């Protein structure tokens, strides 16, 4: 039976969650990519930089997730198993650099659902947007995440 993605999901907002950019996590993330840029992994270099500390690599905000929420919430909303989803596209807007110890509030919503026929058959492209706001209310970054659901 073909899977149908509920179009009513467009506009759905997930509960806001709070994250702290931890020093060790920034470094571990850079090292996992194999990116040993000193501005990410060396506290002395970071401290002497214009930012006054190490900064996070451009894609670090992908680690921001709601640890208290059910990780399968989106999959359940989509009505699919994790084996049917692929990461199709990803975008980061970076308004300022993320430094260790900073706390952010993240808000995610579903902004678009499109049907498409790909090489492997019918699929749905589900776009979510996450806005990352600092304690002062400044938007530091926006993520757009396109999930491909193989139908």
């Amino acid at each position, binding site marked *: 039976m073909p899977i149908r993605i509920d179009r009513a999901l467009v506009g759905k907002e997930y509960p806001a969650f709070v994250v702290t950019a931890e020093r060790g*996590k920034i470094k*571990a*993330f850079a*090292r*996992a*990519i*194999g*990116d040993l*840029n*000193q*501005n*990410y992994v060396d506290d002395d270099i970071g401290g002497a930089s*214009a*930012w006054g500390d190490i*900064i996070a*690599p*451009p*894609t670090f905000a*992908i*680690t921001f*997730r709601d640890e208290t929420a059910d990780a399968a919430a989106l999959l359940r909303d989509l009505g699919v*198993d*994790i*084996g*049917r989803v*692929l*990461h*199709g*596209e*990803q*975008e*980061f*807007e*970076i*308004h300022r*650099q993320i430094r260790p110890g900073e706390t952010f509030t993240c808000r995610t919503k579903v902004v678009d659902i499109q049907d498409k026929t790909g090489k492997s058959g019918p699929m749905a492209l589900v776009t979510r947007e996450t806005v990352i706001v600092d304690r002062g209310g400044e938007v530091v970054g926006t993520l*757009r995440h396109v999930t491909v659901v*193989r139908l």
Partner: protein
Amino acid sequence: MKYAKVYGEDVKVGDAIPPLVKGPIAQIQLTRYAGASGDFNPIHQDAEFARAAGMGGVFAHGMLSMGFVAQSVTDWLGAGTVRKLGVRFSALVRLKDVITCTGRVLGTSEKNGERLVELELWAENQRGEKVVTGRATAALQSRSA
């Protein structure tokens, strides 16, 4: 030349991003990336699960490849220069793949005393197949600033 300071005046349309070669991709790197990113989808760890899902075996997180692409930009232009980065994951990256990230400058402009550099980016595997394509905007200081 790695991490040399690059100023806005140093970059012009058509310049190539120095190729960054990553890999060969090993399972341990995918496990490490899972831990560092929090993405524990078993499709990147468990070959049996990945085959049962119709994917023919384990493949890398798209975000790991995106991290490589971001590194190709920051190795050239410096940490903290990326203002926007968007990619499409066009083919799967498999174990043992060697990924080369490069790109070129599409345009430059001035805004608020910074030089904005528009980049076309891509990453390809050892067979020359594009696995990631995308765009980025980087902001560079002026030499006179």
